[in-house]
């Protein structure tokens, strides 16, 4: 039966069955045990037309927040950044989004070229030498870094800064458990940065440490002081998870001697997507290239000497090396990486810097103004990029403040009491927020304080 997605007419079906020598389509399924087929229970779904399904999904959509109606200060790993329209124009080219992994290089030069560009961009941002073309997300990229570090160093014990995004830490713990690796969490100090004394203590004590996993800017928005870490670590790996937008301004982890740099690339031209698809970034040193997980595009020449690109170093991958592959990843987040490529190219050298600075300046403006409200203060004193932790006045509940802000069409940030910081919220500010919106935020916070104290 021809549905709109199946071009087979009854006549086509009859002809094909005849060529096969089968009497019916049914017959083609006789290799499935009869009892299995008989046990099949339909879903009870009538087919529906595009119009009906669109209506149904639009109705579901309408049951949610319409983000265009709210001013968002939500961050915590996913950010509301400006995406120029060119990104969507390119992403909607069906040659990009309906192709698959570029196994056949000669008819995949579009994909392989942007992958090559993407790898270059990630290297530029992070200050590293080689990068792959994507991992699932920031969390799994960090987990893959952990695995890789363990492979290279042969060590099974790793240090994990508590400033790393809690949800990444949870993923790390799951992966570490799978691979029998040990993770030791290191606390942060009053600046919100890794407590360096604790690190030193562990390093002197733990001879068998394979590396340190740290995030900068960290979950609290604080820029970690990466200086000297690699020197402390020695042979052990310095693994840094980063926000790529911050690297428009911040010194890249590569310049601090990082061995692996990972990060969540959503901010680069991808919408929040309710948390997925995201974009795991992964970069490392040339010398570890053959231990790197994930796909890479490499430059070569064709039979006539013309430059072209192919998937390189496939011998690291599962489809060649199977259980000895550097990762089990196959399908990755290619289209999100394309978005990041176009986004970075659209902004360009100047643009990314400008954008990063808008984030920085706006976040600081807001932070200062909030800290100016009686009883409110910044939880940490370290330098921050576009996100900061606000500690509420004694006795104030974050959930109440956030609910009040929501009334004013403001998504005021994350309630950190869900993450163990009882009296605090995490506020993110991007280039999209206007001064007007920041002032409104401050006003509403002040008003809530007043109302609550009245």
């Amino acid at each position, binding site marked *: 039966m021809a549905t709109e*997605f*199946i*071009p087979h007419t009854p006549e086509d*079906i009859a002809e*094909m069955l005849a060529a096969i020598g089968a009497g019916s389509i049914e017959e*083609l*399924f006789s290799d499935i*045990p009869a009892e299995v087929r008989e*046990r099949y*229970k*339909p879903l009870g779904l*009538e087919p529906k037309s595009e119009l009906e399904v669109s209506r*149904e999904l639009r109705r*579901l959509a309408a049951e949610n*927040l*319409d983000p265009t109606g709210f001013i968002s200060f*939500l961050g915590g790993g996913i950010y509301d950044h400006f995406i120029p329209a060119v990104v969507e124009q390119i992403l909607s*080219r*069906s*040659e990009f*989004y309906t*192709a698959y992994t*570029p196994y056949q290089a*000669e008819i*995949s030069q*579009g994909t392989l*070229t942007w992958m*090559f*560009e993407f790898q270059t961009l990630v290297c530029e941002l992070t200050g590293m030498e080689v990068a792959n073309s994507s991992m699932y997300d920031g969390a799994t990229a960090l987990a893959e870094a952990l695995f890789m570090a363990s492979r290279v160093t042969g060590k099974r014990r790793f240090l994990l800064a508590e400033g790393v995004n809690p949800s*990444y830490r949870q*993923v790390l*713990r799951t*992966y570490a458990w*799978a691979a029998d690796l040990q993770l030791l969490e290191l606390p942060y100090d009053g600046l919100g940065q890794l407590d360096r004394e604790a690190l030193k203590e562990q390093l002197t004590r733990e001879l068998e440490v394979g590396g340190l996993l740290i995030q900068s800017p960290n979950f609290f928005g604080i820029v970690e002081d990466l*200086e000297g870490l690699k020197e402390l670590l020695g042979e052990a790996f310095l693994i840094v998870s980063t926000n790529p937008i911050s*690297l*428009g301004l*911040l010194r890249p982890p590569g310049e601090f001697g990082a061995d692996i740099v990972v990060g969540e690339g959503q901010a680069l031209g991808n919408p929040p*997507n*309710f*948390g*997925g*698809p*995201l974009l795991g970034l992964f970069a490392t040193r040339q010398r570890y290239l053959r231990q790197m997980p994930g796909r890479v*595009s*490499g430059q070569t020449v064709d039979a006539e000497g013309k430059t*072209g690109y*192919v998937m390189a*170093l*496939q011998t690291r991958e599962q489809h060649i090396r199977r*259980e000895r592959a550097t990762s089990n*990843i196959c*399908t*990755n987040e290619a289209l999100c990486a394309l978005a990041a490529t176009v986004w970075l190219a*659209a*902004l*360009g050298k*100047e643009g990314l810097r400008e954008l990063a600075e808008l984030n920085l300046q706006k976040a*600081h*403006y807001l932070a200062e103004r909030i800290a100016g409200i009686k009883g409110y203060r910044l939880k940490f004193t370290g330098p921050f990029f576009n996100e900061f932790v606000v500690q509420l006045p004694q006795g104030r509940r974050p959930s109440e403040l956030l609910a009040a802000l929501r009334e004013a069409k403001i998504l005021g940030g994350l309630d950190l009491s869900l993450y163990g910081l009882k009296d605090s919220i995490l506020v993110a500010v991007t280039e999209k927020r206007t001064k007007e919106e920041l002032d409104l935020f401050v006003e509403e916070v002040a008003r809530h304080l007043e109302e609550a104290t009245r």
Partner: protein
Amino acid sequence: MTIFELSKPGRRGVSLPGLDLPRRDLETLIPQKLLRHEPPRLPEVSQPDLVRHYTKLSKMNYSVDDGLYPLGSCTMKYNPKVNEALARLPQFAGAHPLQGEELSQGLLRLMFELGELLKGLAGLPAITLQPAAGAHGELLGMLLIRKHFEERGELARRTKILLPDSAHGTNPASAHTAGFQVIETPSDERGMVDLAGLRKNMTDEVAGIMLTVPNTLGIFEEEILEIAEIVHRAGGLCYFDGANLNSIVGRARPGDMGMDIVHFNLHKTFSTPHGGGGPGSGPVAVTEELEPYLPVPVVAKRDERYYLDYDRPKSIGKVHSFFGNFTVMVRAYAYILMLGDEGLRAVSGSAVLAANYLKERLKKTYKLPYDRPCKHEFVLSGKGLGEGVRTLDIAKRLIDYGFHPPTIYFPLIVEEALMIEPTETVSKEELDRFIAAMEEIAREARERSELLKEAPHHAPVRRLDEVRAARQPILRAGLD
């Protein structure tokens, strides 16, 4: 040509708003030593040049919207366009994962409902949508097995996972990542798991088996119930790699075959676009027994309200930053709703019909090592066609005929394999054109084999030197 070659100082692709508030000196905000000295060397290109560059690149790709893409094991079916529009609704694409349950009821409901449907198709009572792709689902499945035996105190002993020799590369890699040792179990001459071999391998050190059904030869494991019994009787669990579900969807359920864990590839069976390599989505359905171990959060429903259940003490934890690839799920959900039961049945019916049709017609010209009824795909061998002609040459020559080549050199158990999966979304006329091209190529292989060896002739580039790329890897553009 890369975007970097279009770069000239002073150009830009998009402008940004100015700072609308007082500027502070950078050094007062961030210590000098943590500031960047040299900006990253991003390209500087105008918007017209940017658009022209990526438009040009796009035209160097072959894609599903260009025609037949019979890449075996990948189910390159047509991606309904309405799903693209729906996935981009601002309430979906613009939703922040931490915006809170009260503002996300529609999103959670969609995930919940999709989960229910997938459970129905798996024939299993519990599900997680968290994995971002098939291999991610496999890894999760292996972790569930690990947890299962950890809970029973058998982990120290149960260190092995059985895999048929026809398994996809992600299977051994995933099992290995989850800390298991991989043991291959042989196929018989029909291309199915050899039961005697399995019985021998299925010791009490084995935690379970990973099966792809139909297997990568496109052959349904006719003795799947026996396999499940052998494994279960020896205390193991059965993992069902659902990458090939397009062949049986709407007709048979892994749960009814005795499978304990199933992963779906939403980007295969459920028509979400492959994106040039991703994103995908790999939900995992499990038995009641394994349900407590599913990763947090699980989307749950109470009194008509949907919520994220984190309170799962036996959970293995988390395998993704948030809840998985949500906008991929939106597309799959819309797809299933459009098809309904009847449409799903038609999908597998036509997918299998098209594959068998191609197989029967092509086996007259090409070797078919496993000559049996197939499901959604089948595997030919490119051997013996002509003087020094390899499967690679056949594949490259197909490009000249305007087709994407099949998957080649996989599965490993067939020499010079050509793994062909037409899917149900290609017309008989297109299938016939493909057959004609394959026949013509077979003739060329005998008569003018250089045509194949030098192929492709009509592609954006001629044959590319893969060896060189491996020997002297150049993985980033030179910017100096």
